[in-house]
């Protein structure tokens, strides 16, 4: 039975993992420092004590960890693997792309890989270039892999459960800057939702803002600033990136006629391009050219003020949104 409790995001993930381990006896949970120490972010705290050897530490061997998940999943386990930083997945991407994503298709459905990779990404002040990247676009180009990105405590809880329950290999991309935030009310113990869908965070008339991940908070701040001037926008937080709810985006853009996509990942080749492409391919008539905001195509410097100059900030999002709303197609009769 559903119950409302006060949890921060880290606590919500912990609660979701505990429920998975409790209700799905086939789950196993592992990763570097995940077992005895309870994770470098404390996300799996207490779980090894409670669930014994279904929760364990691993060597620093991401390839072995992920490959083992593929193998164990094909034999009825439901592995939940923590990759501490998404940047580290690059030492083992083969196991995600060439192995996990392939098995079901290539075996004509005889072998499946219902595994979940929990990882986290993004910049935090002072983090180095190798601990700062937003790499969801790499995974979103790989058919066969599901991807979601929770931000709130409730979504963190719900999405982990949906991911683990899902029969496809699924990557849950969290964000370490959110784990230790303020506690919010989170309903736990409710129904496990199917994968997919989005969250409408604001309703508005003048534009549609599509976003995902922790930068959504800045987007909401930016949109709220514009409200003072009577400008309002739909804000769609795409908690599921694969499957991606393109129809929700289309429905909104058809109404507002204007589109801004914001992500923390590098702008060029980011998934924002796909969102824009789908909208314009649909033939939806836009009142202004769509825009994208993302990392200003750079490696990520450690100095916080340098990183801040490259990653979209609230003010920049607000001014970009103002421009999208203020713009009218010159020479466009419509």
């Amino acid at each position, binding site marked *: 039975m559903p119950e409302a409790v006060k949890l921060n995001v880290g606590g919500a993930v912990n609660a979701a993992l505990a429920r998975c381990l409790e209700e799905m006896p086939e789950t196993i949970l592992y990763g570097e420092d995940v077992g005895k120490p309870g994770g470098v972010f404390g996300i799996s705290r207490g779980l090894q004590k409670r669930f014994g050897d279904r929760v364990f530490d691993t060597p620093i061997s991401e390839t*072995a960890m992920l490959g083992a998940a593929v*193998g*164990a*999943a*094909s034999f009825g386990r439901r592995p939940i693997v923590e990759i501490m930083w998404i940047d580290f997945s690059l030492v083992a991407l*083969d196991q995600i792309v060439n192995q996990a994503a392939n098995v079901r298709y290539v*075996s*004509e459905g005889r072998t499946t890989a219902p595994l979940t990779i929990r990882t986290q990404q993004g910049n935090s002040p002072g983090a180095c270039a190798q601990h700062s990247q937003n790499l969801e676009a790499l995974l979103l180009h790989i058919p066969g892999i599901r991807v979601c990105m929770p931000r709130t405590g409730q979504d963190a809880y719900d999405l982990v459960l949906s991911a683990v329950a899902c029969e496809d290999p699924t990557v849950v991309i969290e964000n370490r800057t959110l784990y230790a935030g303020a506690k919010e009310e989170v309903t736990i113990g409710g129904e496990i939702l199917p994968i997919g869908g989005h969250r409408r965070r604001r309703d508005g008339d003048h534009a549609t803002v599509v976003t995902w991940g922790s930068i959504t908070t800045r987007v909401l701040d930016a949109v709220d600033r514009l409200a003072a001037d009577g400008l309002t926008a739909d804000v769609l937080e795409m908690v599921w990136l694969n499957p991606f709810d393109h129809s929700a985006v289309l429905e909104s853009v058809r109404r507002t006629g204007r589109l801004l996509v914001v992500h923390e990942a590098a702008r060029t080749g980011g998934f924002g391009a796909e969102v824009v492409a789908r909208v314009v391919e649909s033939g939806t008539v836009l009142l202004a050219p769509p825009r994208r905001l993302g990392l200003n195509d750079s490696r990520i410097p450690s100095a916080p003020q340098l990183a801040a100059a490259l990653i979209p900030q609230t003010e920049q999002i607000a001014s970009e949104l103002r421009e999208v709303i203020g713009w009218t197609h010159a020479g466009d009769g419509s």
Partner: protein
Amino acid sequence: MSESPVAVNDRLRDLHAMWRIRALEEKVRDLRLEELIVGSVHLSNGQESIAVAACSELRPQDALYATYRGHGWAVARGVPPRNILAELLARSTGVNGGRGGSAHFSAPEFGFHGENSIVGAGAPTAVGAALAARYDGSGRVAVSVFGDGAMNQGAVTEAMNFAAAFGLGVIFICENNRYSELTPINDMVANPDLSQRATALGIPAVRVDGNDLSQVRTAMSLSVASAAAGRGPSFIEAHTQRIVGHYIGDAEQYRPAGELDADMIVEPIARLARELETAGVGRHAIDRCEARARDEIERAASQALADPLVDPSTAKEHLYA
């Protein structure tokens, strides 16, 4: 005739088992040359003894992971030749309906959990099959097969250490055929004894003559018993030779003069036939092993060729659950 009839029969059975693989591989080559099979195929001619001996020690619940050079392992595991050939011929009766192909098919219902065309990448997956056994009470033993060259791929060390650290029931079989594609392994390592890498990770390791079925069997039977009893992984370096090119069309210019001739003498089918003859077994019985195998494969190929081609309209199926 010094051997018991039972022993002779067992050895004839082995010879037949090896011939089934050899005949299949030769058929694959023919079909490839006729372009009925398209794309790259990697044959295992000369290495049959390892697959036959190793698989003879496995139980149905055990899980085997091979490489792109995996046709022989599939046959040894009991996958019907017709469905293997159908897979290579892009027929709907192929083990994976043509999605896997020569280099990446699987037949889990026979304990053949797939080829892998990324060198070394199957080792971690096999570790996962053994990891699952820790929880499911199956007593499953996982077998990871790879080549000498794969030892230099980081994934293999990671997998071996992972299995060693957690005492998982994985048997790592390194088929050392002296070459990685066109390059001699001994030019790519400073220490040619690859088994020492396993030892250093705390894994019991042996080197065996892969052409000697009994050496492979002994090593396997100890390894299976050990893994099934929860005593962790083992490593078997089996020396062998591939008596065909790495791929069809390989000019094999990398081979020193005389090497192939020497290999043709020690390769396991020639060797076992010679041993049987020395043991007094009649030529007819020996030849029948080949003939029966060739017959079976011919029939399998005819069937596969008569099977319907996979239907392109199904191309999008099975990507997601």
